[in-house]
């Protein structure tokens, strides 16, 4: 079943982004070298950049349609976005960060849900700290928890491990795998690292210089590695 259907064009400086792909349930990797336009695609899905042309449909809801003049603002899209740098709110505690999405949507507190996510990501002991006191790995886990607790229709992870060293990456990857298997939220995983993508994704969309060059299974990663050699 198709969860996300994207067909957009956007000029970004000298880069012309022409991207079309469909993502099913499970984890889809948006894979390609730096500068291919991956983050811009993620920002368009989240509504932080507006495409020049095309449409974005999530779960049968039109989020963007240039022709019909539809552009759902980011705060109404319910897409959990985990940014490369975490972007936790420095003036709020971990608990308040995790709770932010629920507060903004005015939903009642759900202690069970909160505890489940905190346990899934192993962040229950960090709740009273400030983001400034967290390690890089802890920060990214909290960022994932914050995105999950807003009950997203789609989880968008943009190079969530890029700012971490190898040891921290190994620390977080199992949580992301667990997330894919337990959380039942479709995932779009943006990365340029074949090793990460192999662990997490089931489908791969390969992006290069603003265009989708291939869509398929994990075998695309081998082609990419072969190309790189």
């Amino acid at each position, binding site marked *: 079943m198709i969860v996300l259907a994207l067909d957009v064009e956007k000029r970004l400086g000298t880069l012309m982004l022409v991207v079309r792909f469909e993502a099913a349930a499970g984890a889809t990797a948006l894979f390609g070298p730096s500068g291919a336009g991956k983050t811009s695609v993620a920002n368009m899905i*989240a509504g932080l950049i507006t495409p020049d042309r095309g449409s974005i449909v999530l779960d049968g809801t039109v989020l963007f349609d240039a022709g019909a003049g539809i552009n759902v603002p980011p*705060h*109404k899209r319910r897409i959990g976005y985990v940014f490369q740098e975490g972007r936790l*709110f*420095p003036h709020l505690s971990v608990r308040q960060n995790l709770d932010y*999405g629920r507060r*903004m949507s005015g939903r009642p507190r759900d202690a069970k849900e909160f505890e489940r996510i905190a346990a899934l990501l192993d962040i229950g002991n960090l709740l009273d*700290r400030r983001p400034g006191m967290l390690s890089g790995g802890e920060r990214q886990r909290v960022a994932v928890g914050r995105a999950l607790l*807003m009950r997203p229709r789609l989880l968008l992870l943009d190079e969530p491990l890029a700012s971490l060293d190898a040891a921290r990456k190994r620390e977080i990857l199992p949580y992301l795998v667990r997330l894919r298997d337990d959380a039942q939220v479709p995932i779009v995983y943006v990365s340029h690292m074949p090793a990460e993508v192999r662990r997490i994704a089931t489908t791969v969309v390969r992006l290069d210089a603003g265009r989708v060059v291939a869509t398929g299974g994990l075998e695309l990663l081998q082609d990419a590695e072969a190309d790189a050699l």
Partner: protein
Amino acid sequence: MLGLTPEEWTAVALSLRIAIVATAWALPFGIAIGWLLARKNFWGKTLLDGLVFLPLVLPPVVTGYLLLISFGRRGPIGAFLYDYFGIVFSFRWTGAALSCGIMGFPLLVRPVRLALEAIDRRLEDAAATLGANSVLVFFTVTLPLALPGIIVGVVLCFARALGEFGATITFVSNIPGETQTISAAIYTLTQVPGGDAAAGRLVLIAIALAFAALIASEWLSRRAAIRFHGE
């Protein structure tokens, strides 16, 4: 206490009331204008920027005179406010608060603007993806992150309002119990023989108040810093 006469106490209390009212009124406008200058591009922005900072560079007497001819009972704004709302500024303590607020305004706007410019806009994007509309983003992310700058601005504006002399005396004169602030009282006392002792007492009070404002700002800024970065 301190050997102050009732008249002197009146001047101290009036100064504090005027400075507090002036700062409280200036604050929302200061945040709004600081936000406009930091975030928006619009026609006349340079003009607005200049207008806000004018009281800082103009001779205070000129500002006071401009207030007198526009906000006085016969002035265009003053007459309008009196006819429709019954509000009077001239020769009232409210007029002193107005002139003090305007004189302190640039000192409030500048740090607020700088703080807003320094905010990582990507945090606001993150808040939007988490379901916050632009008003909620402003009140839950932008404003708290700008708080240290807002505190600095409030303290500077308050201190300026507390010490304002030239514009106030030109606009609302020097009426004991109505518009005679500490500064105006000191000025009056220095003009009469034997006023030195009383002037000296008020000078000490002025120094104490200035120090208290500085210490309060230091303490508040430190608390804000702790909130941001943990102990």
